[in-house]
């Protein structure tokens, strides 16, 4: 009885140790993991996940500080893909981080109201707004990721979000 | 002038699932014919019972699932399941054996998983495994073959019919008088009793290669399989891999210890080797997908068949070998995706 019990416990311990060794990641593996996570993220750089960009969020996911349901622009598809990659329970996007949009939106500046203050240009994380001080500002729709970071700084509220295909 | 439109391609080969299944049934005719020659008409009765049960079970399942009866009922896949299972059962098996086996195969192994094209396990083998585990004694009550040197009890057709439908032998016989183990079964028992291969082979039921009668049935099955290969209904990868693996395993072991292990030709011509290689393992729905995958799948079945026959608990290992390899098919498929044109690997 005792030998059998010890054998089973020993086998289980050996299997567990082997599994733990296999899943341990080196520094290089960690960097590769962050790259893989970053590749799944939509690169909106909006900060809704509470990190300052997509790569910081990826880094936090890799180290276990963040969860997979924090990216509204990625939607439930990205949350599922992250769950699959990281071996966690799939979950829909947590609405506390923001609403998941049904279709992609891009920013549009009403040029008749724009005062040329460059505040939105400074706010855009991907340099999708062209313009200069006292010159007209405009959003390059193809390059806008829909992060909406330009909307709060505008002093005349002349930026709206519109469907990308419009 | 207006015309009706349709998507390309505008010509397709006049093929159909029913045609494929029909060809498989034709290819089984030599096997069935020789089986009846050596073991009497019992098989035909089992086939009739099996086919009726299969069609009834299929119709009931299709109704329950809300699917249309034609074309599924007559696509031939249920009939093939019944015929293959009947070939694996003793000719005098009681009627409820084949009926329950086929019903289990069609209802649980096929339709529960989604019907045609969706079963992960070979339905006939699932039915066989259930019967073997549930009614082991009944499953091993074979007949001696009708060849010179062995005098099987002469049972008329009516005798056969009553035996099957009552589950009891005719009044003037006992079970022992009319039944006999298969060569594989006899070999197992004799080796377990300490006999050598030579001594075991001295039994009148053995001939040059395999068992008398059985080797001819296996050759007939090989011919049927060749017919299917020629028509390109099946491809060569699984049968060749399975038979080669079986041959190699048997060769190695019998070369190392000729007295304790049967030779390769015996294994290739006994039991369900050929039936398994050409008709059972090649069931496309439950087999591996790519060519390389098929080779691994077939080889696995061959090795497992030898292992179960030699060291396992059953005389013939084809059924369980196929079922175990069915389990591994998703894994095999995942790692044997062929290289796509233009991709590095």
């Amino acid at each position, binding site marked *: 009885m005792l030998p059998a019990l010890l054998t089973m416990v020993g086998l289980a311990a050996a299997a567990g140790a082997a599994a733990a060794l296999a899943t341990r990641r080196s520094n290089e593996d960690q960097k590769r993991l962050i790259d893989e996570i*970053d590749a799944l*993220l*939509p*690169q*909106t*750089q909006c900060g809704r996940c509470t990190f300052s*960009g*997509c790569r910081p969020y990826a880094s936090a996911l890799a180290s276990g500080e963040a969860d997979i349901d924090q990216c509204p622009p990625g939607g439930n598809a990205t949350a599922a*893909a992250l769950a699959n990659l990281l071996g966690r329970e799939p979950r829909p996007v947590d609405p506390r981080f923001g609403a998941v949009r049904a279709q992609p939106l891009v920013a549009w500046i009403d040029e008749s109201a724009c005062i040329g203050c460059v505040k939105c240009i400074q706010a855009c*994380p*991907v*340099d*999708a707004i062209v313009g200069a001080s006292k010159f007209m500002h405009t959003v390059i729709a*193809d*390059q806008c*990721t829909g992060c909406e970071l330009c909307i709060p700084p505008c002093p005349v509220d002349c930026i709206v979000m519109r469907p990308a295909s419009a | *002038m*207006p*015309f*009706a*439109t*349709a*998507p*390309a*391609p*505008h*010509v*397709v*080969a*006049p*093929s*159909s*699932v029913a*045609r*494929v299944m029909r060809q498989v049934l034709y290819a089984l005719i030599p096997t069935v014919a020789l089986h009846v020659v050596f073991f009497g008409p019992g098989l035909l009765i089992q086939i009739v019972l099996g086919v009726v049960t299969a069609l009834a079970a299929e119709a009931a399942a299709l109704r329950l699932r809300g699917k249309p009866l034609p*074309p*599924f009922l007559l*696509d031939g*896949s249920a009939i093939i399941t019944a015929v293959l299972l009947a070939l694996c059962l003793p000719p005098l098996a009681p009627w409820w054996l084949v009926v329950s086996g086929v019903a289990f195969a069609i209802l649980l192994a096929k339709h529960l998983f989604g*019907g*045609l*094209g*969706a079963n992960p396990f070979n339905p006939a083998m699932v039915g066989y495994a259930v019967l073997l585990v549930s009614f082991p004694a009944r499953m091993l009550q074979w007949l001696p073959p009708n060849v010179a040197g062995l005098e099987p009890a002469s049972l008329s057709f009516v005798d056969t019919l009553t035996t099957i439908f009552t589950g009891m032998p005719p009044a003037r016989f006992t079970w022992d008088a009319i039944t006999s183990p298969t060569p594989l079964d006899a070999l197992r028992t004799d080796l377990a009793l300490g006999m050598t291969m030579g001594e075991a082979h001295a039994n009148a039921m053995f001939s040059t290669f395999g068992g008398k009668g059985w080797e001819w049935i296996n050759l007939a099955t090989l011919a049927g399989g060749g017919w299917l290969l020629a028509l390109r209904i099946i*491809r060569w990868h699984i049968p060749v891999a399975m038979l080669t693996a079986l041959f190699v395993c048997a060769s190695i072991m019998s070369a190392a210890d000729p007295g304790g292990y049967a030779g390769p030709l015996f294994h290739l011509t006994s039991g369900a080797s050929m039936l398994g290689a050409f008709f059972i393992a090649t069931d*496309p*729905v439950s*087999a591996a*997908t*790519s060519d390389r995958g098929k080779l691994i799948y077939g080889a696995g079945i061959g090795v497992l068949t030898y292992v179960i026959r030699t060291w396992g608990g059953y005389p013939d290992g084809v059924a369980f070998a196929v079922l175990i390899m069915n389990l591994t098919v998703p894994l095999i498929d995942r790692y044997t*995706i*062929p*290289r*796509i*044109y*233009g*991709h*590095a*690997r």
Partner: protein
Amino acid sequence: MAKPGVRGGLRLDAHKERSTAQALRAASSVETLVLPLDQHAGAPAVPLVKPGEQVLRGQPIAEPGGAISAWLHSPASGTVAAIEPRPAPHRLGAPTLSIVVANDGRDERYAQPAPAPFDQLSPEQLREIIGRGGIVGLGGAVFPTAAKLSSAVRGQELRLLLNGAECEPYISCDDMLMRERARDVVFGARVLLHALTAQTCVIAIEDDTPQAAAALEAAIAEAHDQRIQLRQVGSDYPAGGERQLITAVFDVEVPAGGLPADVNTVCLNVGTAAAVAYWIRDAQPLTNRIVTVTGDGVLEQRNLDVRLGTPLAALIYDCGGYTSRMSRLIMGGSMMGQSLPHDGMPVIKATNCIIAASALDLQPRAAEMPCIRCGNCAEVCPATLLPQQLHWYAMGRDLDALEAYGLMDCIECGCCDYVCPSQIPLAERFRDMKPALTERLAARGSAAAARTRFDARTARLEHIESERLAALAKKRQELAKKSS
């Protein structure tokens, strides 16, 4: 990379004997020619003429509308009747903006400047002039030839492959071109060799077209050009697929997602080469093409030399009209051709063949059954895909799996459809799923671009900040020095 090779494919009945039995003939002139402006790949052409204007045959009537676009020339002299949406075959009958020319029957030609001998032009000039002829790929893809040539020239040694391997059943226009106008194909080859600064040209044809082979051999010998060779390939379908042909002739594989130029090859149809010859040698821009009219639903089967814009109904009329068995009108071949809702649409640059199909020509599908995983489809796929897996994932709309199993590498040849015992419309399923996958791949591409811009901006801001801190530190040091 593993050893390249041509895999899969089918041996199909060619159905080309009747349409190649008679010599080429010009189609009859018609009163109205309709020319869709978007009948080539890329941006639609922009009209140069207005309704009511007189035009001459060969006059440019529309210019390229973008970097990848093509010129359009009037196939007849007459008047521009209208510029309006008209049903078009490449839109399956949906209207698209077209120039409608009323033919005055006089066939007066537009005065083109006399062409300079092509070998005295620089390759760049020659490519530009080829573009002005409205030349696009006449094998069916109608990609603007000048753009294709220019994008292929990257400084490496190129080789030219002329595709005369007409593998799809029913189509025989290239065969007739090579039989009767082999000299024009060879001249075009020489022009293209100069335009690409290439030293090798292989004209590939199938091994079941002896007359075309003989005609081409004679024309090559007459031209005394050692750079041009003839090569015969097997006639399995789809031997004439661009990638398959390049692998069969040059033993290399075009990388997935890449172009033939990535393996130093430019592949053009023999009809395109002939069109180049007519333009460069004879100053005739692309206004005509050879169209095969075939099928049991038309009385006579033959190849016609047709002006672009001719209604398909006129071609049928030229061939004696429909038979009583006419059932389906197909533009293209029997494996990949598009079925058209009516015959009131014009011949466009992509129209290589019209099949007036009857029940004898068609082998329609029976009712669809579930996939039994027989593997016939994987056996015949020329791209070495697993169509049964693609079908499984298409049913589940699993875009990740479809990408992994190579949906974008599917050339939609229809071989898998042909052999499926369960009669599953595989090519159609794959066509349906491609837009969703393309959209996802495009989204991934723009996400990568956004990441690049974000990283650049972050670096810029950090640089500005570090400069500012360095300036402050420097000032602090200077102040400290002064006070000490």
